[in-house]
């Protein structure tokens, strides 16, 4: 029973982080309609920056530096690659390939700059709390709070503000907005910026529990983000966050039954099974138009 409770605690922790991955991917995918694979390089780059700077300038300034890097990285991909390609009338496939090209260049630049090996964050945040035999680390307490705050903020902006209504309209029908003379570019850029900026925050939550980061860990993060979105229901930000949470939670609780080396295979297979049976996801209402 203790083991199960421990796994549940770990699951809530991983789920909180995966919820941020899901929200990040969903915001960018829904507003740009691009498979932003380069998000993986943005993620590992910002995490490596946090690790490299934390010991010299302190953890909070390092996180800020990571957030700035991620924001600029995300905006750079949209303004420098996806936007121009779209204006040239490039097919979705070409844009996806360009994103994969950016990923390859990014991962290898990071490897030259930071070295190819795993780096861990050397910051002491205090020991774990033990409740009834279940070990709860500081990061595990912090992660759900941060996740609820970030997702809550995003949902508040999306559903309670004027700007949020514009974002919803952009996700729904961009052409109609343009016909009404509303510039969609800045709205999209704001969503890309926010979606990118929450990546280093998610990364720090993972780093605080001693998880390592290397230049090549980014693509699985994109995969988890994408699975969260499709599991939750396409174009639903809340769905993506819930989807991410469920993936992280189930993945950890499953360790009660399976060895940890099978975790990834188990999660992906379960996802494939669910999406075959219920392609609209958990909260989705209707199938989207194919963009590819």
């Amino acid at each position, binding site marked *: 029973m203790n083991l199960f409770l421990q796994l549940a605690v770990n699951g809530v922790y991983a789920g909180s982080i995966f919820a941020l991955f899901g929200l990040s991917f969903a915001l960018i995918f829904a507003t740009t309609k691009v498979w932003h694979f380069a998000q993986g390089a943005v993620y590992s780059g910002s995490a490596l920056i946090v690790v490299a700077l934390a010991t010299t300038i302190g953890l909070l300034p390092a996180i800020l530096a990571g957030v700035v890097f991620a924001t600029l990285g995300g905006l750079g991909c949209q303004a420098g690659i996806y936007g121009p390609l779209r204006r040239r009338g490039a097919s979705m496939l070409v*844009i996806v390939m360009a994103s994969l090209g950016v990923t*390859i260049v990014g991962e290898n630049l990071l490897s030259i700059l930071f070295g190819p090996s795993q780096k861990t964050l050397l910051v002491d945040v205090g020991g774990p709390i033990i409740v009834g035999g279940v070990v709860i680390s500081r990061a595990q307490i912090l992660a759900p709070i941060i996740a609820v705050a970030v997702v809550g903020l995003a949902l508040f902006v999306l559903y309670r503000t004027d700007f949020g209504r514009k974002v919803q309209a952009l996700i729904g029908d961009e052409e109609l907005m343009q016909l009404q003379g509303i510039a969609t570019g800045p709205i999209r850029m704001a969503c890309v910026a926010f979606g990118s900026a929450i990546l280093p925050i998610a990364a720090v939550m993972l780093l605080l529990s001693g998880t390592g980061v290397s230049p090549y860990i980014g693509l699985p993060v994109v995969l988890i983000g994408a699975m969260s979105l499709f599991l939750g229901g396409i174009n639903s930000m809340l769905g993506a966050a819930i989807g991410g949470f469920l993936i992280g939670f189930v993945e950890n609780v499953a360790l009660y039954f399976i060895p940890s080396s099978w975790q990834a*295979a188990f999660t*992906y297979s379960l996802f494939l099974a669910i*999406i075959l049976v219920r392609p609209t996801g958990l909260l989705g209402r209707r199938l989207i138009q194919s963009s590819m």
Partner: protein
Amino acid sequence: MATYIIGILVTVSLFAILAMSLDLLLGYTGLFTISHAAIFGVGAYGAALTMQAFGWGFLPAVGVALVASALVSAAISLPSLRVSGDYLVLASFAIQEVFYSLLVNLDGITGGSAGLHRIPQPSIFGFTLTQPLDFLIAYTLIAILIFIALSVLVRSPFGLLLKAIREDEIVPQTLGKDVIAAKVKIFVIAGCVAGLAGALYGSYYTFIDPLTFDVHASVLILSMVLIGGMGTLWGPVAGAALLIILPELLRFFPFPSEVLGNLRQIFYGLIIIGFCFLRPTGLVRAR
């Protein structure tokens, strides 16, 4: 030097086969998958294990590899039958990761991260390929035969149906064509060809490991098709040649060896981005 050049050309012929098979899905039918390296791997591991575990000959092993890769490829086609292209991207990505994880974790069968060693060289009717030049001649011949077979296929009525599906799935449906059957069929054909490349790959290098068949390898094969020119057969061949040979040239520049691998990858990434901007139709334009 001659051995080195022959080695590169053998690699080109193998990747030309892979890229042509992926183009059947990507260029001709408009199905974007990111799991082609997994199919390639099913062929490679299927043939190697058949020869090593059961002591079967090369030809029966190739047969097993073809059946196995066709089945896995048909399984990947499932998401494409029900829902839009975005789901296929995601599902094939997930399948690619599941396959990689299986290769690493089923170490009793696949040898885990260490891979499989001492895979027998191809032996057909008592004649065994051993010399690099033997391989080059045999594999180039196979690549040419596949090229000819596929060019017949894409010009056939079935090939026209594929192109119609690419342009608009609804139209062939209204004409009474079985779109679902056509998609499964092309996944099976592409899977067979990629699986054959896998069997040939293992028997040439006599060693395979999971890294050869990871998601980055899938991206490499996708890049070859895009850079060469989608919806053509010459294109993937040209793309394979370009992306295998160009990064090799960097070897002759005096870069420090610890960053050479990274520089080669950066160069390759820049080629992809450059093509996306400057020549998104690829080297060979579809007619």
